[in-house]
């Protein structure tokens, strides 16, 4: 099954059928973007649930001649339907920043009203997107020009976007790397261009090796900032592993007030060389 069938999807499914109980099966599959097998998988789950008063949560009837499905929903479904704060917040943020959604509001008054309702509950400021944020990815193939952390060179990736997430580094695009046949994470702010196939060079990718770094810990409070990051700390020394040299370099520079590289010497020399270069320029 391709579709991620989870509680969020079940909520979407219920929202879709609540106001329109009668569907042509093909139309419903299109609307939900699922296969017939997936639809029947969902139906076996939801039709096996009973409310506290003993009635079926959802009942359905299929007319095989007309290829129609008719839902009969318990009153509990209305109470059950909910949109959590995280989802509404994501949508409100994008309604205020995403170029596509800004134009949707101009075209459709009810979407504008929807956005105004949300504005009453979210007190949000954003300085990053004075101009609308453009995330012109589609669910097909995209070629992105990306600058990795710690690097000054662009690399091109042929990707199929999956989802946007956030972590301590910022907004992350999770995407399928077509050439390496694996899922990768890209920091949105480091995607410097979305381009066509002509500029794509598979050879621009360099295989990276993990690197272990020993730091002298300059400020013990820094350990509080490490969160879920894996590390070892012994007698003022901090040991960490990074997925590439560039990643380690980026981390060492960004935390130079708290950490000093002790080993490997290549990394230490690189940072010192950069400091000397800057000193000479001043």
């Amino acid at each position, binding site marked *: 099954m391709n579709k991620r069938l989870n509680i969020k999807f*079940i909520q979407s499914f219920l929202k879709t059928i609540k106001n329109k109980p009668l569907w042509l099966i093909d139309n419903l599959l299109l609307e939900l973007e699922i296969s017939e097998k997936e639809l029947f998988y969902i139906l076996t789950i939801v039709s096996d649930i009973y409310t506290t008063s003993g009635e079926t949560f959802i009942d359905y009837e299929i007319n095989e001649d007309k290829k129609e499905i008719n839902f009969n929903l318990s009153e509990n479904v209305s109470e059950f339907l909910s949109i959590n704060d995280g989802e509404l917040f994501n949508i409100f943020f994008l309604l205020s920043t995403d170029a596509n959604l800004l134009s949707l509001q101009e075209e459709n008054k009810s979407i504008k009203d*929807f956005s105004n309702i949300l504005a009453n509950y*979210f007190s949000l400021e954003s300085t990053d997107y004075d101009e609308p944020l453009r995330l012109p990815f589609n669910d097909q193939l995209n070629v992105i020009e990306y600058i990795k952390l710690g690097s000054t060179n662009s690399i091109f990736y042929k990707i199929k976007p999956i989802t946007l997430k956030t972590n301590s580094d910022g907004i992350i695009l999770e995407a399928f790397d077509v050439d390496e046949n694996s899922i990768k994470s890209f920091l949105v702010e480091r995607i410097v261009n979305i381009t066509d196939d002509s500029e794509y060079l598979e050879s621009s990718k360099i295989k990276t090796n993990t690197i272990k770094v020993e730091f002298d810990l300059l400020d013990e409070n820094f350990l509080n900032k490490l969160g879920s990051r894996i590390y070892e700390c012994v007698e003022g020394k901090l040991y960490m592993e990074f997925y590439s040299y560039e990643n380690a370099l980026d981390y060492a520079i960004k935390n130079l007030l708290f950490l000093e590289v002790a080993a490997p010497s290549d990394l230490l020399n690189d940072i010192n060389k950069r400091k000397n270069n800057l000193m000479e320029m001043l």
Partner: protein
Amino acid sequence: MKNVIKRSIQLLNLVSNNKTISTNEIKDSISDYRDLSDQAFRRSFERDKSLLRSFGYLLEYENDKWGFDQGYSLGGSYVFNKIKKESKIDIDEFIANYLIVKRSLNLEIEELVNPEILSKILLATNDKKRLGFTYLSKYRKVKPQGIRFHDGSWYLAAFEGQILKTFKIEYISDLKVGNKENLFNTTDEPFNFSWEDSKAFLNICISLPKSLYIANKSVFSHKLIKHEQNDEIHIRTSDTYGLVKFLLICDGSFELLSIDKPDLIKEILDE
């Protein structure tokens, strides 16, 4: 998987519409739990709770010593529940519009902000309740005002005493919402960072490929004064430490054209 989804629906169904339900009622109402030993039920229930939490549905235990309805209720849908109660709003139309907007998005969006923290901030901001949390090892009590997005990070804007401060949400832990409502007023002031009011600015002009600037601009707080066609950028900042990091990262790819306070950078490099 099928049973997990089924149990999740059953759990949400039990606590929907602001119901509070005891642990025993939960065990009795869900067939998968009913025949389990107490220990096995606990384990299974905790796993299901944590799964629901990962989707933003917060099953919370209310333990108010003065209250009658002790037990689990559903948190995490503060805004939707408020909207549902608004008599002027047609909730079916609201849901229909929500589905239209969702369909217009090219991608599925997940967790821009930790949903549990977000939900508590929204509740406290709208009901004007106090928030308490640990921030970088120090306990804070604040009056929340809103959320700010800046340079790829999310901040809580809140009054600590009389001073409006911004707290990086990533560093907030053990967040708790106070009981009392309407404790303060919210401000119309912009959620400024302290550095934005600073007069100790440093002005620098460098030549740097635009792509490198875009990829690394979030390393430091600054104002972009001008970006010329020939990749010349004029920047004003009081975040000297951040500027040093930015320049070290871009080593070999930029040319320094002018700087008005080079000593500030030298001081950091000499440390």
